């Protein structure tokens, strides 16, 4: 890119709200159900059917707006956005154009501040399933509530774009606003990107890149589009305002449609829906339901539990993990050890997308206590946790079938030591002659002698004791 140019990014994010029912009818929103099994006259746009707004969706939009420091409008209402497409049952989408529910927000991040233009509520379209010979439409998604978050064109780096999207997903998960699953399409990112001259306030013509299915694609699409637009400008041509797609395979963007040729969306108020009137008391009530956000939680872990910043990040970056951590601490207050075991041993089995960490918490706490008392070797934790988490085997059964338990019985250990020394008189003599290096050999032999795990501290002490005593004997 020309050194005098810089990119400007604005993001439009569609997040499916985690309501039980659709936005304007009582059909289920559950993902993955049989095709066209969650439909009714309202979400199919049947003649005469009327929408009725789902108040849960409004509450979630208030929460989203509040998290992003927006003004929550006391008055907002719904409009119809018209276009013809097979996945749009009514020939229009009910959205909020003129009076959105939230406006003028911001989010402060490590790489800068992202300013929010607006958040509005709208209904999702159906899903077109494209087969080789026919196109099918699954209307289960039609009418699922969405919020669209529109940022200002204020993002000047990939890092900030990435940080914003990651944080948004995490915060929405914490507040149960959206499950943030890009791969299921419940969280969709559209990229608006243009190049402008540095030091200039005038923005260049932007292109909109649709349907980016992962953060990786978002970053690649930014690169590809910066490359393409700077080429266009380098050749002395001008960038066209258009909608483009991103091809994961080629890593390039391609033109979908020109805005110039398209009809307008012919926005018009939807009179079937009453305006959303929100009183401050109500807004405040909903705001109070928002749980602690990841950033505050991180600080809390650092300050209250003395956990280092890197570990705190790992814990908060997965809501299920941080909830599990909190639950553990309620049962047993050893944040250092618990965080250590979770991060270094348990997490390698845990999928990042889980909604709940499924492990028997009492077993886990017992395990922590055994580790703390050195009844179990840390090196065995990986195996034990594999059985506990992946195989769902109880701690009792794990111990029954395996020998992780460390023996600290001094008499038992002394018996083993004595028999090892008797069987290895040669070695014993070598040790007596000053070959201290051979101590490790005795340790190994003792451990081999039994299928139990021996407490190494105790074993070492007894072995030293017995070797010392034997020393005396040989002199006689």
């Amino acid at each position: 890119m020309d050194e005098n140019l810089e990119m400007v990014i604005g993001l439009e994010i569609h997040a499916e709200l985690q309501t039980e029912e659709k936005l304007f009818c009582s059909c289920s929103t559950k993902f993955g159900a049989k095709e066209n099994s969650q439909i009714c006259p309202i979400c199919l746009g049947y003649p005469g059917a009327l929408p009725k707004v789902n108040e849960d969706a409004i509450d979630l939009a208030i929460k989203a707006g509040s998290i992003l420091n927006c003004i929550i409008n006391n008055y907002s209402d719904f409009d119809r956005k018209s276009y013809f497409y097979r996945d749009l049952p009514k020939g229009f989408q009910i959205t909020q154009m003129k009076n959105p529910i939230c406006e003028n927000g911001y989010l402060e991040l490590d790489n800068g501040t992202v300013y929010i233009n607006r958040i509005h509520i709208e209904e999702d379209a159906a899903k077109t399933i494209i087969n080789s010979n026919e196109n099918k439409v699954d209307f289960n998604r039609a009418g699922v509530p969405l919020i669209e978050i529109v940022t200002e064109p204020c993002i000047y780096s990939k890092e900030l774009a990435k940080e914003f999207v990651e944080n948004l997903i995490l915060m929405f998960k914490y507040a149960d606003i959206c499950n943030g699953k890009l791969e299921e399409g419940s969280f969709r990112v559209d990229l608006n990107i243009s190049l402008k001259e540095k030091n200039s306030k005038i923005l260049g013509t932007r292109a909109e890149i649709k349907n980016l299915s992962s953060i990786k694609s978002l970053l690649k699409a930014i690169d590809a589009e910066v490359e393409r637009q700077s080429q266009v400008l380098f050749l002395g041509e001008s960038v066209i305002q258009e909608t483009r797609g991103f091809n994961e395979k080629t890593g390039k963007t391609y033109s979908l449609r020109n805005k110039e040729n398209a009809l307008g969306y012919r926005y018009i108020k939807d009179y079937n829906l009453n305006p959303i009137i929100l009183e401050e008391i109500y807004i405040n009530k909903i705001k109070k339901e928002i749980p602690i956000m990841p950033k505050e939680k991180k600080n809390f872990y650092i300050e209250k539990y003395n956990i280092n910043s890197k570990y705190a990040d790992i814990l908060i970056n997965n809501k299920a993990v941080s909830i599990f951590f909190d639950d553990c601490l309620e049962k047993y207050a050893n944040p250092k050890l618990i965080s250590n075991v979770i991060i270094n041993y348990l997490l390698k089995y845990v999928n990042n997308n889980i909604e709940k960490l499924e492990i028997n918490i009492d077993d886990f706490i017992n395990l922590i206590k055994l580790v703390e008392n050195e009844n179990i070797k840390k090196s065995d934790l990986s195996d034990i946790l594999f059985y506990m988490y992946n195989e769902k085997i109880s701690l009792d059964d794990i111990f029954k079938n395996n020998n992780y338990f460390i023996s600290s019985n001094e008499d038992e250990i002394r018996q083993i030591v004595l028999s090892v020394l008797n069987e290895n008189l040669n070695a014993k003599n070598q040790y007596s002659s000053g070959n201290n290096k051979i101590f490790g050999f005795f340790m190994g032999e003792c451990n081999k002698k039994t299928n139990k795990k021996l407490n190494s501290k105790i074993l070492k002490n007894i072995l030293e004791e017995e070797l010392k005593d034997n020393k005396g004997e040989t002199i006689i």
Partner: protein
Amino acid sequence: MDNSIYNLRKMLDKKEISTKELAINYLDNIDKYDEKLGCYLDIDRDNVLKQAELAQVAINSKDSKVLTGIPIGIKDNICTKNLKTTCGSKMLENFTPNYNAHVIDLMEKQNFIMLGKLNMDEFAMGGTTQTSYFKSTKNPYNLECVPGGSSGGSASAVSANLCVASLGSDTGGSITQPAAFCGVVGIKPTYGLISRYGIIPYADSLDQLGIITNNTYDIGLLLSVLSEYDSKDETMSKLSKIDFLEYIDKPINIKGLKIGVIKDLLEDDINQEVKKSVESVLDFYKSNGAIIEEFSMPIIRYCNDIYAGYANPQGVTNLSKYDGTKFGYKFKEISENWDENVAYNRTEAFGDEVKKRILIGMYVLEKGYYNNFSEFRNVVKKQYNEMLSKCDILINPTTNCTAFKINNNFVNNTDNCTVGACLAGLPQLSIPCGYNKDGMPIGVCFIGNYFQEAKLLGIANIFEKTMQKIKPTIYA
């Protein structure tokens, strides 16, 4: 037999006639006259007799309600479960909803008898009932004349006693105008009084269910059944129970009543016989002690244009769902291109009047004029509200002429007297007030404040009692 709900109710409950006899009586009437009149689009005879049996069971067990066993016709834009609902359009030729409009549910609860579905202008767009894809409906007083529209089937059927009452719908005069043309009583209630759920919309902010009967008392009876609250319609007003017959049962005192008249409507383009007839109504009330107050309302001359610019953009969006792929219409694929297919099928299945109004609506939306029309509408509303703050009711001709000949292309402004009050969302009642020299009915219109239907009925009822009705010529 006096064909009123009031009388039939008495006869049925006293067992002077059975529900089956009554139903067959009406089916015979339909067989005899409907070929000439063209009121009915669909009659489910088996079901009529079944409903009659059920109604008789209720009556025999002394469990009859207002509408038990009463034969009623339904305009074909009101959804009826398992009975075709076509809106008079090829686009819905084979559409059978699997849901009832709320009003149908309410009447079914009382075991009414649904005689069949009544013809209408396509998608309620028109004032003649000649734009229906299926057939032309005639005026019972002169088969060469229009019955008015769009609820022309509903008005003509009641007038010719092919049902004792009918449901229709009104957006800009679609109830009152045909009621006047066919010499029957019609009410467009206050916007929000009756659920719109299941009534196929034209313009959502104006549409209202309407009722056509032979007298004001029956209107009151039907309103009390149909105004039951429906949570499925957000725009329905939550009201405490209204006694719609209050002022008929205890006649209202005319003395000192202030009756407003919009003099522009009597000065402009108006048939002199109609003018005289309406003036005689005013004289009647004056001679009984009412005070006549004249208002000037120049904007009334533009209300038809305001209506066109305000209703049609809404109509455009409501018609967008008819892309040809759904609702019983057989989609023809002529191209790989989706838009071309949609255009082709819409061209095939919509009639000229609908296309004309789509074009008007599209033009207004694309040009961005909609908000202007919305503002004009508010001005009209304000002026009506001001007038009604200075008088009890307004009286004006329902139409400026009587029913005209079919294919008379010169008449296209027959809603000019009714459309203003429709824009204002006010209740509007038309009753017959005389006949012209050719025997064609003339209607007078009573407009009251919001939710004051009872008062309108009471005032109109006093004149109605003095009115000598002439039977339709079809019976001569």
